Each structure stands twice: as C-alpha cells, then as structure tokens.
C-alpha cells in the first residue's frame, strides 16, 4: 500500500474571526501575509520531510477560504518537485471544470512531471459546490465541461507530432501544441476524487484511480463496489491500486498522544464544511433528485448528513469528537497498534484499497507535532502495511 501525506495548508489564525462561513465570503483582510509565509514554509518543510520518511506527497486546492491556503495545487508541487528526490507527487488536484484554460493545466502538469523526473500523479477534480462562486463557472454543465477538459488535456499530453485542432463545446484552440511533453508515457497516472457510486463508475470505465474522502464506514463500501463492478463490466483489471481512501491520522507513543494529535487534525472536518448555505447547492451542480430533496429541507443543503456513525446516525462535523471520527471511519488514531488495527478493520470492511491518503496535518497541529506524527507513522505503522497484502 502506498501512503500519501496531505495537508490543506490551513490558514487557521483567521478561524477565531469566522462567524458563519469559512469560505467564499470571508474577507482576506483576515489573512496576514507574514504569518501566511511562515505557515507555507512549515507545511512545505513537512512535505519535504516525507521524502526521507518514505511517505508520498499529496496536495489539493480550494479558493477563497481560510481552511485551505493552497489555492494552486501545482505551486507547492513545483517547489517539492525539486526539493524531493524519491517520493511520488499527487496533485488532487486541478478543478478542470472550473479552470478556463485546459492547455495551461496540461503545461503545468507536464512541467511538473519533467522537473520531478516522472514522479507526478495528476488529479482532475470536480470541486466542491462552494468552488463554483469563486470560479464563476456554470454549475449546470460542470461535468460536461470537466470531461471535455479531461479529453483535451490527455490529447494535448499524448500528441507529439505538432499542433492539432480543438473546436469543442466549451474549449476552442486551433493550435494545440504543448511543450514540454510529459516524462511518463503515455502520461502521468490520472486520479479523481469521487463521492458517489455514480461517479466511481464513470472513473472505473476510464481506468482512473479514485480518491475517496470523508465518506467513512457507511458510504465508502458502495462507492468501491460500484468501481469494481463497472471496471469488471468494462473488462478492466480490478486492482486495489485504483482505489484510495483518505483518513485523518494521529499516531502517538501513547493512545492519549495519538488521539490528541487526531483531535487537532479533526479541526479540518469541523471547519471545512461551514459555509453560508446559499453556496452549498448551486443550481444544476447536484442531480435534480438531490436538489429537489435539498429544496424540501430548505437551508440544510444537500451536503447535510454526509458524515455518519457506523450505525447510521448523522454526525454534525462541527462537534465531532475523535471517538466519533474513529467510529465513522474518518480517523485512525491512537498508538501505532491502534492505528494499524483500525486501518485493517476498515480495509477489510470496504474490500481493500491500494492507497492511504493520510491527513497527517490539519488545523492547529503544530510543526513539531506534525513531524512527530509523520515520523512515528513511518517507523511504526508504514512497515506493517505489507501485512495487508497490497
């Protein structure tokens, strides 16, 4: 199993000022660039350490938010492509339905792949609903645009005999000719985060690796199952390497220490969904059936009830405890044995997966604590993952 360390590079100093929305409308006067610079550098140091620890690196991006100050997922990757030498680099990733220029995406990813000498894994993401407002992209045809951008980026990265023409529905170029071409052939591996069985099946058809985030004990099995089923129907090999699961991981020398670390990382879950409700369900973003349901439970948005306990109770993420998160399968926390046992139980429950996306830093977890968390994980948990058989 491959492990990837992920942090949202949160700008947590602004959090005490937030009343009802950590996103979209939060003014950037709450951001102090001097403090922000220190935070960027420490988060980058933590990722650079991963090269020594044998933990791969994952970045993401969000916009207009204090929960994630990484607004361009390829910028930290550009720094890390040179600062690291061994581990793989997953950008999960580029919101290609929200970006106006897919060719620019192909160029950024190709450069990263070459600079890192072929260590890039490239993510294409739909983006959460509250990304629509900052990008001002049309939510009603988002996935249509997503797949056209996907097709164009791949064709741009795999065409090596000069310019080609692209006059599609959403994107228009008469001379697509991307330099450099990627290091990996035919192109770096593709990832896509998914949150429903339907989108898992779409990814399976294309052989795309799926990253499943915040779906926990209850919602993950049908997503993985839908992927395996459609992959089989499409005569694609069913490989655990195509399935990734994200968990918030706190490991300590004592159970108390590991859980304390997880508790701080969990501030990610407690803050990142707190958004003014009008941005929760832009028209056309979700299916008509989902939106119809949201209409009747007015104000709650369709994302309500996404986190569930093992026995199906809705958990309010703003008040989630570590015990709640462990029960829900969102967090693995405690001693190295605790973490491994929780991971193995989850792994067996969902039918296996090939990648663990480890949120090893979140919220206010300090640099020293993050380094301790990652280091202990690499020494006491990572070597045992082979026992899982992938």
């Amino acid at each position, binding site marked *: 199993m491959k492990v990837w360390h992920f942090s949202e590079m949160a700008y947590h100093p602004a959090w005490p000022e937030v009343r009802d929305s950590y996103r979209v409308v939060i003014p950037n006067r709450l951001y102090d660039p001097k403090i922000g610079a220190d935070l960027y550098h420490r988060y980058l140091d933590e990722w650079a350490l991963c090269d020594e620890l044998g933990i791969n690196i994952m970045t993401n991006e969000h916009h207009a938010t204090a929960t994630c100050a990484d607004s361009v997922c390829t910028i930290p990757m550009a720094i890390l492509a040179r600062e690291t030498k061994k581990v793989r680099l997953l950008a999960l990733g580029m919101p290609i339905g929200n970006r106006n220029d897919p060719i620019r995406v192909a160029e950024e990813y190709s450069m990263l792949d070459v600079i890192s000498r072929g260590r890039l894994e490239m993510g294409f993401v739909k983006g959460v609903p509250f990304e629509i*407002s900052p990008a001002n*992209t*049309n939510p*009603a045809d988002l996935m249509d645009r997503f797949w056209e951008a996907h097709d164009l980026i791949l064709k741009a990265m795999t065409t090596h005999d000069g310019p080609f023409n692209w006059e599609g529905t959403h994107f228009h170029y008469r001379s697509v000719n991307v330099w450099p071409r990627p290091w990996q052939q035919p192109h770096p591996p593709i990832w896509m985060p998914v949150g429903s069985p339907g989108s898992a099946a779409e990814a399976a058809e294309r052989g795309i690796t799926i990253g499943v985030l915040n779906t926990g004990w209850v919602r993950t099995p049908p997503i993985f199952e839908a992927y395996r089923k459609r992959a089989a129907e499409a005569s694609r090999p069913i490989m655990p390497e195509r399935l990734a699961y994200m968990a918030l991981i706190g490991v300590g020398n004592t159970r108390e220490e590991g859980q304390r670390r997880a508790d701080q990382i969990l501030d990610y879950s407690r803050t990142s969904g707190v958004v003014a409700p*009008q941005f929760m369900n*832009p028209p056309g973003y979700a299916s008509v059936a989902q939106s119809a349901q949201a*209409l009747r439970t007015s104000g709650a948005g369709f994302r309500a009830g996404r986190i569930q306990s093992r026995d199906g109770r809705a958990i309010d993420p703003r008040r989630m405890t570590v015990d709640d998160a462990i029960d829900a399968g969102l967090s693995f926390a405690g001693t190295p044995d605790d973490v491994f046992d929780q991971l193995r139980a989850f792994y067996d429950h969902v039918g296996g997966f090939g990648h663990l996306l480890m949120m090893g830093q979140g919220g206010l977890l300090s640099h020293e604590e993050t380094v301790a968390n990652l280091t202990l994980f690499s020494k006491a948990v990572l070597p045992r993952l082979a026992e899982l058989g992938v």
Partner: protein
Amino acid sequence: MERIQIGDVSLGVSTAGVGRPLLFLHGGDYFTQHQGFLHILAGRWRVLIPRHPGFGGSERPDWFRSVHDLAYLYLDLLDHQGLSDVVLVGSSFGGWLALEMCIRSVERISRLALIDTLGVKFGGREQRDIADIYALPADEVLQRTFFAPERAAPDYSRLDDAEAVSIASDRAATALYGWRPYMHDPGLRRWLHRVRVPTLVLWGQSDGIVPSDYGERLCRSLPDARFELIPAAGHYPQIEQPEQVADAIERFGRAEVKP
C-alpha cells in the same frame, strides 16, 4: 400540455382561450404560482404558454444551451403555428427572451409587454444591475422577490416529489442559460433600437431583484415604450397582483396602434 416538434426540440406548450394570440414566456422560478394570472389571460386571449426546454423536467437537446437558441425557437414557434398580430409577454428571464426575439424579428409580433425583465446590462463592470440570487441568503432572496413573501411564496417543505423535481430542474435550467454573463447578454443593449413594436414595461414597485429604475432605463432604451408601476408587487407582479397586470396588458394590447 401539447408537444410541438420544432427541429429536434420537443416543446411543451399549453394553450387556452380564444381570440387574438398571446405568447407568454415565463421566468426562472415560481411557474406553479402563475395559475391565477394565466387563467385570467385565457379568458381574454388565445394564450400559448411554452415551458422552456430544460425547465419542468423537460428534454433539451445537448446543443441547445443559450438564450439565442430560445429566441430562435420561439420565432420558429410563431412561424410553425402561423400566428400573426401576436401580443408577446415576457416576465423576468422570459422578458429577456422576448427582447432577444424582437431584435431579430417583429414580423409576427404587434405588441410587447415586459414584466420586471432582465437581460440587459446598463451599469459599469463593478456595478451589479441584477441581484445575485445565487449569492444572497435564501431569506433575503425571498424578501427581494415578493412584496409579501408570506402570502406569495410556496412552502417548500410541503412540496410533493413531482413539484420539487420540477422546481429543481427550473433552477438548473435557469443557471444553464443565465449563469455567465449573469442574467444578461452583453450585446443586447446595443440592439434594443430594433425592438420596433409598441412596448409596455410593467414593473413591480417593490422589486428587489431588478429595481424599478432599471425598468425605467430599459423603457427609455426602447423605441416605443411606456412604463407602468404595479403597486404592492415585487419581481413577479403577475403572481401578487394578477388582475392589475392582466388589465394593464389588456388595455395596452387592445389600444390602437399609433399612426
């Protein structure tokens, strides 16, 4: 509702009443709340009420995605039905479509009535002419939409499945056609001189989505238009004051054309 095939679009059209034809183009939301108004119109005109493709759960071909497509579709509908001397009435988003039709052709149209219409950009790039209903809290949108929301707005918690699905698809379709540029066509203002048909610009006095000074400016931009305020009404005066709006349209529609 009748289905009329125009090219590869299967258009749902309700028709009612007899007499001179009146084509009503609905806005983005609250279609169900139009029944009273449309009933009054049907007592006075031969009313045609299309559901825009993609609205109300209807089919929309993949290629069909802009207000320009809608404008040509409804011009085709008038041809297809062989209608002339048509009174064209558009509310909100439907008023935008009516304007897009009229700058292309008024051959079959003899009167245009616009109700709290959007679609035109008058202000500068940092000025918002049309309230951003997708960025305002739901309660505020309701307050801006209706003079008396407690009377006019539906109780969403009581919707049945079919109604909720219909509204959700109306909202998705409105976004598809009107998300960016937001609820307007940047070029439309420059072509309003082509709306060469007597026009009535009706406006709810308490419209907080597109305020009445926008309506007055729109009126001044049209070659032959007059402006009328409807008191005790918001963005959909035909829902809150159906008799007043129907009467205003009737007075205007039946008046002699100026020589």
